[in-house]
């Protein structure tokens, strides 16, 4: 291929980039939107923590109350209190107007309802997390595709710029070989160099844009992965809380039907001690789990907040570097314009002093 054909081909080549053709403002808006989304995710995480703490606290409190009620019922059945079950098969207790207690089965059923409600709250919390995890996973997949497209385009742009650089180098050599800067060949070659420089600059800008896009979207993906990891761990911890809640419910419920059927009061006494021990274990388990989960979220929100700052810093650095590059190009253009202007001005001055040839 002759040099002329090569130059013509290089300049005439239409470079096709995959996917979105980023504009600088567009990329900036995209990154800004994710910055806001991550800030909102952090706030959501903080509100998830608040919700978790509240659920865990209420659950621990309610279960502790259930335990107390359970012990009270245990006392009734084992004879620390008079009436109620012992003589139940012979006589019904006298309804004493001064006994302000609610029926025991109602009391215990209320505890069951509260424990059930708390467990459902945890279940709903789990669904919320599952939804968030699902959304984040889809987002990561979508963003990864964007990263791949940006990387591919970066390669395309780089390869074209390098090709143009070679053409530019050869044209510069040609220019030196011509020597006479007043000749038509010299001016033609010089014009070609300018044209190649212009195309190089255009695609160089794209190269930088794609490179930035790749880096910045990779940062977003990294942040999403952080959230994903935290939410997955939170899900596991909440699942533990849910399981413990179900255990407590089963224990309360297992004895509730017995309590509702007075005829079974005898057997109930036997089960009471064991049931109370088991309930205590479950309540303690809930308390430990709740405390660990709370600590986990607190630590991770702090870590993420710190990472958000780093992420912001990185973004800022990228933006600054872009702006610097842009400034450089502008300054270069201005320099070129001034140089050209100076040259033109010099020629004019020369013509004025020497007069027409």
């Amino acid at each position, binding site marked *: 291929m002759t040099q002329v054909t090569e130059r013509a081909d290089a300049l005439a080549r239409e470079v096709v980039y995959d996917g979105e053709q980023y504009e600088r403002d567009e990329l900036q808006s995209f990154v800004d939107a994710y910055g806001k989304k991550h800030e909102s995710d952090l706030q959501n995480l903080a509100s998830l923590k608040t919700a978790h703490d509240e659920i865990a606290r209420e659950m621990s409190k309610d279960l502790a109350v259930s335990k107390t009620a359970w012990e009270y019922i245990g006392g009734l059945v084992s004879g620390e209190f008079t009436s109620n079950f012992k003589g139940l098969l*012979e006589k019904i207790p006298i*309804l004493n107007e001064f006994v302000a207690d609610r*029926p025991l089965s109602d009391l215990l059923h209320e505890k069951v309802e509260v424990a059930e409600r708390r467990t459902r709250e945890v279940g709903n919390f789990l669904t919320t997390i*599952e*939804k968030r995890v699902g959304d984040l996973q889809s987002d990561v997949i979508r963003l990864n595709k964007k990263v791949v497209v940006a990387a591919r385009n970066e390669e395309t742009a780089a390869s074209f710029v390098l090709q143009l650089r070679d053409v530019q180098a050869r044209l510069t050599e040609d220019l030196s070989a011509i020597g006479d800067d007043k000749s038509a060949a010299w001016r033609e070659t010089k014009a070609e160099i300018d044209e190649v420089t212009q195309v190089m600059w255009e695609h160089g800008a794209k190269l930088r844009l794609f490179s930035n896009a790749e880096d910045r979207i990779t940062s977003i993906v990294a942040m999403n992965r952080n959230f994903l990891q935290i939410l997955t761990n939170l899900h596991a911890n909440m699942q533990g809380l849910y399981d413990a809640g179900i255990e407590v419910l089963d224990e309360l419920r297992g004895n509730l039907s017995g309590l*509702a*059927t*007075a005829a079974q009061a005898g057997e109930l006494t036997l089960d009471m001690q064991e049931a109370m021990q088991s309930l205590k274990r479950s309540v303690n388990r809930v308390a430990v789990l709740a405390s660990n989960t709370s600590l986990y979220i607190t630590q991770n929100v702090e870590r993420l907040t710190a990472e958000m700052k780093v992420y912001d810093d990185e973004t800022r650095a990228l933006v600054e570097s872009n702006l610097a590059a842009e400034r450089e190009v502008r300054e270069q253009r201005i320099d070129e314009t001034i140089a050209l202007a100076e040259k033109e001005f010099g020629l004019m001055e020369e013509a004025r002093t020497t007069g027409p040839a």
Partner: protein
Amino acid sequence: MSARAVPRSAEPLDSLAPQARYELRGRAAETYARSVRRLVAGGRLNRFFPDARSLVALFDLLAPSGSQGTHDEIEVGLGTGLPTERMVTRVQADASIAAEACHDAEAIDPTLRDLAAGANADDAFVRRYRYHRALLAHPPPPSFSMRRELRRADPEARAAWLTVTLDRFDLAAECFVRYTILLRHEDPRWSRSQVRLDEDDLEVSENFDNLVARATARDAELVFILLSRVPSITVENVTRCRVGPLWFAGIEAPDPIRDLLADHPGEFILSLPLDRADVSGRAHRNGDPFGLGYREALSRAARGEVDELRKELGYHVRRERKFVCTPGAAQALRDQLKRSKKPCVIYEAKSER
């Protein structure tokens, strides 16, 4: 009245607490819930019965389609044929968190309302949201609620006439029950009042509520007797109405019903018993072919004591039962009741179509 002990039957008056459970899943659960819903809706439940609308909502929400696939199973008590306490509490607990759950879900996905309104919602999150919206729109009945209404007051006599309506999910019988109690309360001079009237405002002490709650665990006559023993309270009428048991093949039922269902598999009979102790009644009447009254469950000696109490308190007891069944069981049930010489009202549940 005196504070002597009231004879108690050696066995519970109703069937034993239903300990045995059976779990229906998927299509079977759906068919079951829809069938019971039809029966409840067709039972023409009057104001003495638990609220039909919220019961219908309960069975709608229990169905896998009603919970939008969030729950696939219904646990049924083999002694009652009705959903167990666990199932009822499940729907109630879901209802209690529904508002917050909807709010949280809408915060995650602001388009959720539109998505949920669409015909196709395969996403589990959207279906769960729909379920919570349905719970808010049609709440299930609470497991306990008490309403007190002032009917009349006589300030000079320091007396108030009240109607107490107590709805509860009876844990022993595992069915919904409503007690309607008409009573007169007289402000005592020497002890704390249970009820206070401030102009038109009725103030009822927690003690009073607890007394009523403690008393309303058994049949109407026993509730009448127990509340009559409380100084300052004069009971006029106690009516207890239950929704259940539900009989179908495989469920514990009286022998004639079991035989009937063996000949008519796939049919359902919902029993709606009523028992009432009332001072305005003229005679004791047991028109319930399957219910054993409080007095009848006692030993011969103890019955004498109850007869004395009946005279002393001046009330009469009436028991009756109506039924609502699927059309295929109606004629056989009519024939059966005719043979028992206790004819009852029978409604046929309309088909869903």
